[in-house]
């Protein structure tokens, strides 16, 4: 990913030097030509094309905004409910994310969506302890996080 992006920047720079015009528009033209070249030669790279990764990042951001809105509404419902019949609990979420930044990203996303807070990461970085404000079924809560955020993060980090 980083190598492809760097190569694309390099091609854009070479394009600028070849056309001896050092403006932003020349850079963008060179960048687009470089993108075309990289798409043509995509089989030489061991990683997948970097635009898919950018696309996955964008999808993760959109997913976060969607979850943020939905969980804000559900917390609002909890707050406005006249009766306090909520079921708060702390549960362990097993995760198979490996890198530090992935775990940090997942915990930040979980904490930023209202209703859930990451309390601790276990020492072997395989379990996240999460406090949730209103949970009916633990497996449901684990599944919903695993299927939304963790899947999207894995999509971003896949080489």
């Amino acid at each position, binding site marked *: 990913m980083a190598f492809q992006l760097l190569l694309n920047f390099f091609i854009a720079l070479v394009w600028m030097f070849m056309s001896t015009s050092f403006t932003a528009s020349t850079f963008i033209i060179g960048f687009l030509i470089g993108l075309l070249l990289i798409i043509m030669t995509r089989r030489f790279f061991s990683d997948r094309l970097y635009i898919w990764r950018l696309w996955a990042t964008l999808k993760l951001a959109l997913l976060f905004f969607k979850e943020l809105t939905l969980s804000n509404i559900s917390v609002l419902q909890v707050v406005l409910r006249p009766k306090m019949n909520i079921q708060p609990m702390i549960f362990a979420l097993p995760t198979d994310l490996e890198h*530090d*930044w992935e*775990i*940090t990203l997942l*915990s*930040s996303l979980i904490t930023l969506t209202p209703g859930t807070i*990451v309390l*601790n*990461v*276990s*020492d072997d*970085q395989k379990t996240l302890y999460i406090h949730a404000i209103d949970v009916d079924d633990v497996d449901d809560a684990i599944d919903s996080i695993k299927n939304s955020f963790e899947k999207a993060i894995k999509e971003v980090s896949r080489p």
Partner: protein
Amino acid sequence: MKTNDVILQTTTKLVFFIIFLFSIHIFFAGHYTPGGGFVGGLLTTGAIVLLLLAFDLKTVQKALPFNFTIVTGIGLLLALGTAAGSIFFNVPFFTHAFDDFTLPLFGTTSLHTAMIFDAGVYLVVVGAAVTMIQTIGGDA
């Protein structure tokens, strides 16, 4: 006891650079807008303190291998040198000079010797504050 600070440490690695960049911005902003050597230096110290909070003293000393006492000394020398330099031009002590220069990328920039004095202040603040924190925090 070993605790898992993965979230704090990964976030610190990113935020450190943002704070450091902002401190440099504040330092250069000092002439026309609020900012300057003192707040810039304190912000840099803040970034280093954040590193110290997230990692331990030894790691930070290895990552930033500066002797901060010497940094303070260099800062004082810079400030004194700027002030004393005016003597050679037959003007009173601490007289500053400035001129407009055309630099590549920056365009026409007015460079002022007060900036060098400010750099001295910056280094003294960073050196002194980090020395204090490291001395209180360390065993030595």
